[in-house]
């Protein structure tokens, strides 16, 4: 039986949206890929390279983008959905540019919002120049501009894990999963470029969940001489020289640890984008972690409480690129099966 071509609206043109669009088009469907920014790629555009293989992020993005050059895919950049209604089994989406899209299914691929480091007030992010977040470090690596506040190559860099993750004080009980391995990747990259720079990772637990992540962690210790300290930094403050003084407990000793650093990098976690309008209008439920709730975490991961609305990628939970791509493909299959019925 040949299925009639169906229309699917994908909200969000990051890795999940791109990959799902390619898969759905490959299954013969027509896709609108709606992205509010001027370019596709989402957070991936901001990254320098990707763990665990250290493959350049641009290269991965370009390869993914080559899959959406397909007549079945209509890419709507600089576009936001202004209004969205469910009419019977179909969805009427009005864009802010006045287009009306009639979709048989909607895929939410809205990604995540980076945790605002300023909310962890004790580190003085935004107040002390030497305190930056992990994406700012990534940009420094990408643009080759790693500098301390005096414009010199930093003598010491501290990467502090779990910012905005596993933290009741900011309402995020969950682990953002990717920050540990990101820190390790960034630590290696710093050491690769500046072997004289001392790099420390302050962590609570090292969570190396993916293939070759643990190996990367060991490589950071063994080959790149990155020092790992078990203890979350309690407080940071700048001194007159603009260095950051930190206080932590070295929990493996059981004593407070004080040291100075040129840069304190806050490894910010992922948060759900709770302002996303389509989800609000369609009444898509969120879990206690504020990410979209799956109908079933095992068998119906990409389904939501609204029939015809699906989710993929980091809007469902903190997720790395590898899992996001797999998850987007899974969502495409789920949508395909739904539309067959």
């Amino acid at each position, binding site marked *: 039986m040949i299925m009639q071509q169906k229309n699917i609206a994908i909200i969000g043109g990051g890795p999940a949206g791109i990959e799902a669009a390619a898969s759905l088009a490959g299954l013969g469907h027509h896709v609108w890929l709606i992205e509010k920014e001027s370019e596709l790629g989402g957070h991936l555009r901001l990254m320098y390279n990707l763990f665990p293989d250290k493959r350049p992020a641009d290269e991965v993005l370009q390869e993914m983008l080559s899959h959406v050059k397909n007549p079945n895919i209509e890419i709507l950049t600089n576009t936001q959905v202004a209004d969205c209604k469910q009419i019977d089994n179909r969805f009427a989406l009005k864009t802010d540019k006045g287009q009306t899209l009639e979709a048989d299914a909607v895929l939410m691929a809205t990604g995540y919002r980076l945790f605002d480091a*300023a909310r962890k*007030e*004790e580190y003085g992010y*935004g*107040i*002390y*120049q030497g305190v930056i977040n992990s994406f700012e470090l990534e940009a420094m690596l990408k643009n080759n501009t790693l500098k301390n506040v005096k414009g010199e190559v930093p003598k010491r860099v501290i990467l502090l894990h779990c910012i905005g993750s596993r933290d009741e004080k900011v309402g995020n009980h969950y682990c953002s999963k990717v920050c540990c391995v990101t820190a390790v990747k960034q630590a290696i990259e710093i050491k690769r470029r500046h072997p004289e720079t001392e790099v420390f990772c302050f962590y609570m637990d090292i969570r190396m969940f993916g293939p070759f992540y643990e190996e990367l962690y060991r490589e950071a210790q063994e080959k790149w001489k990155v020092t790992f300290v078990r203890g979350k930094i309690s407080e940071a*403050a*700048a001194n007159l020289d603009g260095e950051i003084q930190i206080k932590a407990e070295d929990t493996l000793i059981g004593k407070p640890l004080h040291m100075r650093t040129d840069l304190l990098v806050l490894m910010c976690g992922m948060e759900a984008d709770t302002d996303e309008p389509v989800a609000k209008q369609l009444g898509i439920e969120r879990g206690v972690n504020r990410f979209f709730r799956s109908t079933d975490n095992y068998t119906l991961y990409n389904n939501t409480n609204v029939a015809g609305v699906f989710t993929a990628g980091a809007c469902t939970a903190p997720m790395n690129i590898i899992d996001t791509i797999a998850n987007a493909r899974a969502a495409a299959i789920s949508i395909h099966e739904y539309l067959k019925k």
Partner: protein
Amino acid sequence: MSEQCVAKQNLWAKYQKDIADDHYYYCRSCIRQTFFPASERAYLNIMRDKLGKDLFDDPNHTTCTGIAYHSDLVPLQTTETVIARHFALMTEAGYENMAISCVTSFGLYTELLHTWEEYPEEEARVRQYLWDATRREFKKPKNIAHTSDTIYKFRNEIAAQMTRPLVNVKTGEPLKVVDHIGCHYAKMFPTKGVGGAEFPRVLTGMVEAWGGTPIDYPERRHCCGFGFRNYLVMANRGYSVANSKKKFESMVPYKPDFIVANCPGCAMFLDRWQYTIQQMEGTTYGADGQGIPSLTYEEMAGLVLGYDPWELGLQMHQVPVEPLLDKMGIQYTPRDKWTGKKH
């Protein structure tokens, strides 16, 4: 405005505390009345005479037992019931707002109200205790503020009446002021302090409004070291002084003109420990080698409003305040320091 300032403003915007406008039931501080009795009087005077506010100083008021509580002499329920008695006194006097002079008390009152929210059975129990002991009943206050909150609230009104801004009259430069916030002011409940726990605004707001420059330094948030039993028992005082010393050493490179604290204990310790360290180790802090004066915010407010330094009780400080008075261009009669001035 610099990025840093914007970030601080954004942060402070999150901690806009509700502070009552008028009609306060005044809660006295054990330590303030002992070491800074004139500060207390100056506060009441500023509020009443300069700002035209109504404060009730109740002869029936007593300690909240906070120091005993944090020294583990009394159980929580005793302290709760003593505080409940103050609520009853306030209710009986027809007041709904509290202005609390002591930071430990302020923290305790806040903690108590929070606990009663979470554990209503605890409130019921305390009401019963109070009834059994005193036959009193109470309404919970509508608003509780630390007395420094009220000064912060009216800082611009004070600025309007200011005669001696926080400016070095010789150089015309703003005075550099280190603020020290009592730990129990906002560390336990950041939303209950003006500006939160990490970058509190309550004192820096006053300093800025009155022409000074607040100084941030690495150990700004560190405890003065009082530590209750750590000071009360002689054997433990090495801990107490060491913490203040840590702060002094961290602030010295910034060459501050004076320290201001909103907690009576902190103001006293940051004064006395300088003397102790000087005696024990020979180190005198401060750019001029005369120590860094440590003021209460009432004393700071009194000075900018032109109060006589000896009426403000500045002679009770061990670190000499005269160099600061000279910098501010405040006239004072040296011989009145100890003989007093009748007015």
